């Protein structure tokens, strides 16, 4: 049991003058006993051992019906998150109209269609088979086949992907067979994803299915080794509000060549060629670690965790890349870029910090940002009282060290694990064991992610799959200065009089990554915590209801 042994140790730890264990008890008090028992394991008072070990948190477990959490589904994780940002694949949603409709342009994955010669960009379109009741009854394969044909006839794409929704699995449509048939017929790459909404317990299953599909059907199709030095892939960066553009700008300045991006501003050709890179960088560990692992096993490309959220984090991540390639030319350039870019970041931070210092934030976002953005808040002198993921797994919370202890439960058992072996011809370890050991001795971690909890102070509250009720209680108890979550939470939190920063959509701003992004973020947080609007909630006559004024003529 995770919580029992920690209780004693954290007893004297105060969180913003509250006893976090008592807060936890209050969060649980209204739940029926079974729900309280389950939620007790997902609400953890953080405590970090000297060696970085944290309490166990229950995560990636099924959602409690009726509790009103933040989660979406497997389809959203697969089509919406991982494959949505690839501009030159026609993504057909096989299902009734809703799934395609709601994932149509609602995630802000920017793309630059003119950076590849063919100029393809289908991201502004929504393609759907718009299943009707007759397809539910008689099956939808015929319509899907015809839809693929019509997509080809009207748009001449170089690839078509098909995404299954809830009813597809139930009625037994074989989308993979349809894709194989149409691939043979049309002579372009056509592939399918069985990402029915009910699979797994959250978006996370969809990430895994997307990783598998793209690895199986695309990665490795093009062995051309392109030009440029220091060839990397940027994984798990979706170019929300232009984040990846800012990171690409820095790569360019440093002389680092980006082979592919998974999948902000991405193209299918780059995926096909991505196994030729010499290093994988992981931003969002949750959504893309599968591709990184598979690429390492099959092709010998190692990966390191990076974080481009925050000025210091960006500098650190660039240095990691330089450390890996270990050449003076790159190291010098990276240092020169950091030296050139950091002063503006530091100046902006110094300007803003007097107004943000000591403010308190809470972050409940997806599967990676609740961790990454704590770094930015720390730069602003802000404290994170509580954080959590919608759909992170234990390794995202506690670090990959716990991977061997994670048991896959019944709800996630049917998510396919691909059996990957080294490619007989193309496996090529990019770095020798000796070199790896040497770099590790110098502090470069390969294939590691330490998770969010080791970086959070003792007594902070880590909450997985936060519910609406818990949100309301946290706000009433702590009255934080800023709450970070998504669109569904935004206006409920703001009705409490607390500003909410959307860390999915960035409230339509950005970029927030890299050096320029940090500056944008500082200004945005300054605006939010300093806004006058939160003083307007009570009318003058509500503040002083008695008619006690003296009038001039008296």
């Amino acid at each position, binding site marked *: 049991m995770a919580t029992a042994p920690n209780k004693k140790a954290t007893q004297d730890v105060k969180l913003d003058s509250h006893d976090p264990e008592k807060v936890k008890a209050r969060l649980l008090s209204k739940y029926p006993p079974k729900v309280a028992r389950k939620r007790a394991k997902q609400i953890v008072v953080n405590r970090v051992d000297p060696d970085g070990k944290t309490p166990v948190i229950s995560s990636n477990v099924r959602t409690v019906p009726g*509790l009103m959490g933040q989660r979406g*589904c497997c389809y959203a994780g697969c089509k919406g998150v991982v494959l949505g940002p690839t501009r030159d694949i026609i993504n057909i949603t096989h299902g009734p109209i809703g*799934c395609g409709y709601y994932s149509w342009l609602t995630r802000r994955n920017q793309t630059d269609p003119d950076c590849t010669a063919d100029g393809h960009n289908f991201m502004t379109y929504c393609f759907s088979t718009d299943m009707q009741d007759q397809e539910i009854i008689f099956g939808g394969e015929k319509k899907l086949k*015809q839809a693929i044909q019509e997509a080809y006839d009207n748009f001449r794409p170089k690839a078509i992907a098909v995404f299954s929704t*809830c009813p597809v699995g139930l009625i037994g449509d074989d989308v993979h067979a349809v894709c194989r048939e149409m691939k043979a017929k049309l002579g372009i790459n056509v592939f399918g994803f069985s990402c029915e909404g009910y699979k797994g317990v959250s978006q996370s299953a969809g990430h895994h299915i997307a990783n598998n599909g793209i690895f199986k059907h695309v990665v490795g199709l093009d062995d051309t080794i392109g030009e440029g030095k220091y060839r990397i892939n940027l994984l798990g960066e979706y170019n929300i509000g232009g984040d990846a553009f800012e990171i690409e700008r820095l790569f360019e300045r440093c002389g680092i060549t980006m082979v592919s991006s998974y999948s902000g501003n991405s193209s299918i050709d780059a995926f096909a060629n991505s196994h030729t890179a010499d290093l994988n960088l992981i931003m969002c560990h949750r959504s893309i670690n599968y591709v990184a692992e598979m690429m390492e096993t099959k092709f010998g490309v190692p990966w390191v965790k990076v974080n481009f959220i925050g000025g210091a984090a960006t500098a650190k991540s660039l240095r990691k890349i330089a450390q890996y390639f270990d050449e003076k030319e790159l190291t010098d350039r990276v240092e020169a870029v950091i030296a050139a870019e950091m002063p503006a970041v530091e100046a902006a931070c110094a300007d803003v910090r007097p107004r943000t210092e000591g403010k308190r934030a809470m972050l409940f976002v997806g599967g990676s940002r609740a961790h990454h953005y704590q770094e930015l808040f720390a730069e602003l002198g802000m404290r994170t009282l509580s954080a959590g993921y919608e759909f992170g797994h234990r390794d995202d919370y506690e670090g990959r060290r716990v991977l061997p202890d994670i048991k896959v439960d019944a709800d996630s058992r049917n998510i396919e694990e691909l059996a990957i072996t080294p490619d007989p011809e193309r496996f090529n370890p990019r770095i020798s064991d000796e070199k790896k050991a040497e770099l590790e001795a110098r502090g470069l971690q390969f294939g590691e992610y330490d998770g969010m909890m080791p970086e959070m102070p003792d007594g902070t509250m880590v909450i997985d799959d936060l519910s609406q009720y818990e949100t309301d209680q946290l706000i009433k108890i702590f009255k934080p200065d800023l709450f970070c979550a998504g669109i569904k939470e935004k206006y409920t939190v703001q009705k409490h009089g607390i500003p909410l920063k959307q860390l999915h959509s960035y409230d339509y701003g950005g970029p927030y990554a890299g050096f320029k992004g940090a500056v944008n973020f500082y200004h945005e947080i300054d605006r939010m915590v300093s806004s006058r609007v939160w003083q307007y909630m009570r009318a003058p006559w509500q503040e002083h209801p008695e008619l006690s004024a003296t009038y001039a003529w008296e």
Partner: protein
Amino acid sequence: MLLRHTPTEIKERSALTVNPAKTCQPIGAMYAALGVHGCLPHSHGSQGCYAYHRSALTRHFKEPVVAATSAFTEGASVFGGQANLVQAIDNIFSVYNPRVIAVHTTCLSETIGDDVPQIVAKAKADGKVPDGKFVFHANTPSYVGSHVTGFSSMTKAMVDYFAESNGQRAKTINLIPGYVEPSDMAEIRRIAGIMGIATIMFPDTSRVLNGPLTGRYKMFPDGGVTIEDLKKTGSSAGTIALGRTASLAAARALDAKCKVPCEILGLPVGLHGTDAFVDTLRRMAGVSVPDALNLERGQLVDTISDWHQYLYGKRVAIAGDPDQVLALTRFVVSLDMRPVHIVTGSPAGKKYEKRLREAVSEVPEPVNVKVPGDMLLFHQWIKNDPVDLIVGNTYAKYIAKDEDIPLVRYGFPIYDRMGHSYFSTMGYRGALRLMEKLLDAILDRKDRDADDITMELVM
């Protein structure tokens, strides 16, 4: 170009929908359920649907949209969602304490054939529904109709579950406003109020989805029709249903169940649409129209005459939901404008299409109509035969930008502008606002296109 691949050549498509002009049923049901006071909408399906529906409504209204979900897993999807729904009902009443839960379904629970009334009965038998609390439901399969169908079904469910006749006829008139903005619902009620008529409006999302910021979050805001009032609808003198596709089912159900006579009208958009509404109200309630309303009408007519020259003959493309599209088409025709490309994504039926074609029968040029159609076809029509103005939801801005045509945002969803939830486009006053928007778009464009010589100060 945002929609750079849209081909000018139109090829018949039978299987592929591109850029839909509709979405799926449950979001409409969720919206309708939010128009009941103290109600928590509940989505009986996997949680992705409810996350999407809440997000879409939130983006449109910039307001909290609360709802719960059964959160199906793969196991439940195979063996049925009874345990999920029973547990959800227990948790919802224990934790959130709504007065009523409105359950709708998704393609998942509909495909597996979950029997919601049976599951709710089980929850009741197990003591999971406290005294004085209610659970009602509508079946909303996403593979039938559109979001408007879902709205219609949930509105009808309010009648099926709650309306009862006490054997007497009250003077109240039931108003079923249709899938319209909270501001429209308030305006429709205001008009009846000016006429001195007591009404029961259902659903009613005004003050639910355009509420105040006070620093106190109320999960169940002050607005919404109460269960008590829903019960009384069965004893009202009559029902006026606005918008056939959204409101007819509930009005007919009330007639069948409680013998409340009903009139089905188009949405009260524009002069004639509002005239029909006011005249029907007057006759049904047996009152005369007060001067205050005659004044509003006269002001509208005055404005139409003042600005007619800029609207006359202007060619318009309209996309949206069927009730809005029909009412708007009638309005712009009454202004001597020419709707030439008209699309609704909802399969509103042959009779609907006939009404739409009648509405444009006097337009002196060919008119493209597609029911149901999508926004790719709409865009292709515009490419082949450009217009002066596009009226549609936020997604139409990609077409407007590509083709450099002014856009008036109208209908659902509007993700990128404010105003719609506070300022109605219905009634005489709403018609003034709608005209203002049409004129602003046309005149801003005229100013933009004018050169230094032809620029006008006075218009």
